[in-house]
């Protein structure tokens, strides 16, 4: 099963004619994802990887009845694309675009709440349910079908840890990138809730980083709910100085809030295992699953 996406996902690519959009459309198609249409204003009537391109979301939707959108549109126009997708009835959105202004992201999330849409990202590698569907830009050969659910705020670090799991024959149900921005759609608690009821998922790996308090809230949730599946976490940024933005817009320690120590302590207090180094995640998981 996995969460959010699956075999019946039918996606429209916003920004399909761009370098990133067209390249990843090809890779997603090769992975077996159903990409039914693309949208780029002014490029209607053309094709990318044999996928028809439309000028507007409405036209694409009328002809193809998609249920998902993946957005590669440049930052200044990305919020507009997300609103267009939702206005045309799409309820699952993956926003790959990095550098979207906070104000724009807040407007997108407010509308998503109003129309009950699920937003993944922005600034995310996307989501993959190995051997079923991929709506994203991650290198698919690193992943393998299995029973570990992964949720993360970072791309390459997720690949690093997923590769470690795959080497130890620990496949994944779904790997979900929340995105590296301060304002994102789904958060850790949302993902934990979904993995809780997903029958394929037997354990969860949660990869957090400095900035904000979403990890702390996830720790609180796991302890309050007596979370029924094993959870292993890794938190990046123990060595990050306060006040400096570490690559991701959301990865910044302000004052005493958002430090790695805070998050690690919150998880330990909640009885969740915290890995010291990325590759310890797989080892801890192997032990947890065996016992």
């Amino acid at each position, binding site marked *: 099963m996995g969460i959010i996406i699956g075999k019946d996902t039918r996606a429209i690519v916003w920004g399909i004619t761009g370098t990133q959009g067209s390249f990843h459309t090809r890779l997603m198609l090769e992975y077996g994802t159903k990409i039914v249409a693309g949208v780029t204003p002014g490029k209607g009537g053309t094709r990318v990887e044999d996928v028809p391109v439309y000028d507007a979301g409405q036209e694409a939707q009328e002809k193809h009845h998609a249920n998902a959108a993946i957005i590669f549109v440049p930052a200044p126009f990305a919020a507009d694309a997300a609103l267009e997708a939702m206005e045309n009835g799409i309820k699952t959105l993956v926003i790959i675009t990095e*550098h979207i202004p906070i104000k724009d992201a807040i407007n997108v999330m407010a509308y998503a709440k109003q129309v009950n849409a699920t937003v993944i990202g922005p600034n995310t590698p996307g989501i993959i349910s190995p051997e079923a569907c991929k709506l994203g830009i991650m*290198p698919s050969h690193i992943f393998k079908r299995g029973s570990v659910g992964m949720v993360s705020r*970072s791309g390459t670090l997720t*690949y690093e840890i997923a590769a470690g799991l795959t080497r130890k024959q620990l496949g994944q149900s779904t790997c979900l990138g929340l995105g590296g921005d301060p304002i994102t759609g789904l958060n850790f608690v949302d993902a934990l809730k979904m993995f809780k009821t997903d029958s394929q998922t037997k354990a969860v790996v949660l990869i957090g980083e400095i900035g*904000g308090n979403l990890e702390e809230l996830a720790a609180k949730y796991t302890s309050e709910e007596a979370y029924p599946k094993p959870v292993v976490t890794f938190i990046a940024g123990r060595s*990050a100085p306060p006040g400096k933005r570490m690559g991701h817009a959301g990865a910044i320690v*302000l004052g005493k809030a958002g430090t790695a120590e805070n998050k690690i302590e919150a998880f330990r207090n909640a009885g969740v295992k915290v890995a010291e180094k990325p590759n310890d995640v797989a080892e801890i998981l192997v032990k947890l699953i065996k016992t």
Partner: protein
Amino acid sequence: MKLFEYEAKNILAKYGVPVPQGGLASDPRQSREVAARLKMPVAVKAQVLVAGRGKAGGILFASSVEEVERTAQKLLNMQIKGIPVKNVWIEEKIQVKRELYFGLTTDRFRQQYVTIASGVGGMDIEEMASKTPERVITTPINPNFGFHPFQARQIAKRMGYSGTQISDLGRIFEKLYLIGMDYDTELIEMNPLVEASDGKFLAADARMIIDDNALFRHQEYRKKLLEGESELSPQEVEALKNDLAYVKLDGNIGVIGNGAGLVMATLDTIQYYGGKPANFLDVGGGAPSEKTALALKIVLSDPKVKVLFINILGGITRCDEVAKGILEAKQKIRVTKPMVIRLMGTNEQEGKRILTEAGIDVLESMEEAAQRAVEISKKGGS
């Protein structure tokens, strides 16, 4: 992008938020001119973008034009936490009755802007939240609804005010929200917001951070940032111009990697094995040779760097391409310092062969590579 106090105060004043009378000076003569227009006593405040400016001696007081000049001279010759003071802001001292706090920030969990207010000012938000949580008034803002006068008045009321002061204070809150929206701030705060002895309210200090990702809508500030009129070091500006994320740290292991999370984890792993990273540098996806060359140049501009640790997780990018990029870059800028490289991803073996033949250490795991870099960094003292 952090704005200087004087920039923030000028914006506040433009929107009609009362601020103390004041002016900017970059030399003692100018400070005299500014002081001559003001009522004594005045505060002379170093314009630097570091926290804890007051405690570091960056805010002084003066009660005559001559004293202002001497004080300005003193501050302008000072460095605060390593940052030279280029300007001072001179303003009339206020008779304080009560210090308050009001700010607008984002709530990640609610995915909304939120105003934070407190009848106790002067501390930072986190300190306030932990010391006097019962006095912190949080108001989430639904962007489809906005922030309205009745909400602003309600906050003023909850801070303990009555009569005309409710509307006076409410109007200041509304204006601050408006500035936040107009300038795309990720944080704007008046701390303290002061109730003067005559019952009037003034922003005694103001802090604004513009969302870097929204700078395309605020070209004048983008220009300032790129011209170095900000807290960024020259290396950080150079990185920014080329879409690299660089943060200088104070160790001796230069680090280059792709992806923010991976680079952070690389720094953590170095620290875990007892080493000290010299920087954070994320080259982003692909890492073509020009970008790698630039990254090497920026990292090596720090004379403390003894060894370079490059951690690339190829993913979709081919490792052989990355390896060639590293070699080209190495030749282009003549790297003489030892390098430790960790490559993982498509065509890993080919990438490894190319680098090994060129005499560069390539390791399989991030942990091994980090240990090797730490070992080299400790050779021959510091």
